[in-house]
């Protein structure tokens, strides 16, 4: 089901996207477009490592795209480039038609670890984006953050410190923080990799709900095939290093998805087998 179909079904959160929609450029074109990305790292031993070699990727507005691939395939590099944390050695990247040259408030990043600052309360952590780098800590933005806290089930935990929260709650707080500036895009780098299997499944459902209500465009990096299919509108499969796109698969599974039904769906099983075969064949 597409993003617009979700909105039509009234699943979109009404109050949250006002600021985002005002920034939306001409509909139709991709929100993120990356072409021929190359990234080479120098190593201590002197041999350069080609992390990405001609990687292409497009994300439509409101789309949820998973990237799955073997570890070290450059999927995190890909995310760092789009986040503006690293510079590409070759290739073009645009966000809403504009070249990506550095970090932007239109992009929220969720890291592998929650990376909450332990000396700040949950509230201080989630409004950090509004207080640094030209962020605006006005009441409208704070109200948005409060809504996200509520959606993600963190209401009542504002004055707790990160070490008082479970791993799943910490990662949810990190997601709320990434949403604080009301970005158009959420980049997530294996955000649930450190969680236990059951918490992880629950977090997948939570993320789907947050995504459906916030109407963000999400790029989700994972090494779990199941997670990639469960969450994605599309799954991009990457080859092992140097990273290239092997396949771009549509996921035609009804939303909202849940583990009981989704993983028993023939479409899910077909996709999972296809991705696994591809990854096994890739050296």
């Amino acid at each position, binding site marked *: 089901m597409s993003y617009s179909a979700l909105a039509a079904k009234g699943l979109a959160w009404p109050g949250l996207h006002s600021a985002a929609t005002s920034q939306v450029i001409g509909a139709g074109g991709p929100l993120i477009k990356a072409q021929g990305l190359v990234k080479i790292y120098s190593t201590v031993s002197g041999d350069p490592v080609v992390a990405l070699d001609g990687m292409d990727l497009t994300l439509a507005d409101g789309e949820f795209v998973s990237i799955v691939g073997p570890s070290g395939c450059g999927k995190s590099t890909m995310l760092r480039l789009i986040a503006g*944390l690293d510079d590409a050695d070759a290739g073009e990247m645009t966000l809403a038609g504009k070249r990506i040259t550095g970090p932007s408030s239109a992009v929220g990043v969720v890291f592998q670890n929650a990376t909450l600052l332990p000396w700040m309360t949950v509230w201080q952590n989630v409004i950090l984006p509004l207080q*640094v780098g030209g962020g605006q800590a006005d009441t409208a933005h704070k109200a948005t953050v409060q809504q996200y806290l509520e959606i993600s089930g963190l209401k009542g935990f504002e004055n707790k410190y990160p070490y008082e929260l479970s791993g799943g709650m910490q990662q949810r707080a990190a997601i709320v923080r990434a949403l604080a500036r009301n970005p158009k895009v959420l980049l997530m780098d294996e955000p649930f990799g450190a969680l236990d299997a059951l918490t992880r499944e629950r977090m997948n459902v939570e993320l789907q709900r947050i995504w459906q209500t916030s109407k963000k465009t999400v790029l989700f990096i994972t090494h779990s095939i199941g997670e990639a299919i469960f969450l994605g509108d599309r799954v991009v499969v990457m080859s092992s290093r140097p990273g290239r796109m092997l396949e771009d698969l549509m996921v035609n599974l009804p939303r909202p998805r849940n583990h009981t039904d989704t993983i028993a769906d023939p479409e899910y099983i077909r996709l999972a087998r296809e991705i696994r075969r591809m990854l096994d064949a890739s050296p």
Partner: protein
Amino acid sequence: MSAADPTTLNSFVAATIQRLAAQRRRERINYILLTVTGIIGLLLIWEASVDLFKMPPYIIPSPDRVLNALWSGLAVPLNSRVGFYLPLWNTLEHATLGFLIGASLGLIIGSLMAEYRSIEIILMPYAFALQSLPKIAIAPLVIVWCGFGNGSKVVMAAMLTFFPMLVNSFAGIRSTEPERIDLMKALSASRLQTYLRVKLPTAAPYIFAGLDMGVVYALLGTIVAEFLGAQEGIGVVITQAQAVTDVAGVFAALVILGGVGIALHMLIRITEKRVVHWSDRHK
């Protein structure tokens, strides 16, 4: 006992809690008893050895002579010219001033070295060379430059506090996790914001370890300067007592210094526990 019966279960839980509390109490009492026994034992062995080996009191005085000297130094009015209070106040005043100057400079220069590679390259050789030099050896020079007064005491205290603070601030700031720096970069935070909000708190446990060392070194530096030539201070009390072979008086002054050292160390530890409340629990 049946766990299904709530009243039985409740009384069982209450009994267990009581049992554990009693056990903790016993352990605490044991701890105090052992400590006191240790002190009394040590004093008895000391007294016995002095009697047994017929030690003259101008070499090693017996504990009761030291206690006598301690009492005569303490049982005077606070503003008395004789006794410990005025010299101790004088020593602490200059040690504290030197400590504050040395700690601030160490933190500032350590931070600059950690933040700017060029400053690190320029200053690191001197930091290394001076760090390996026994700083006490510079004391005669300091006396030449700053005279036999209070200036030398402050300079010595500042110099001895400076180096552990420099090294610890530098190491602490460099220990900031790359993911936290990425987070601030993704938020387009300025260098100062990243320093104040992420790097400085990350370095806090290191900085407190530096302060802990520094506070003892500041006292050491002040005493050394007092030995080499001063009119006031505990160091002067020690040299004067030594000059008249009042070894019990020297011992008493050392006991006072030990007590002050422990008090300062505790003060830093308590402050650290309050400020760095997250330190042991954030991982």
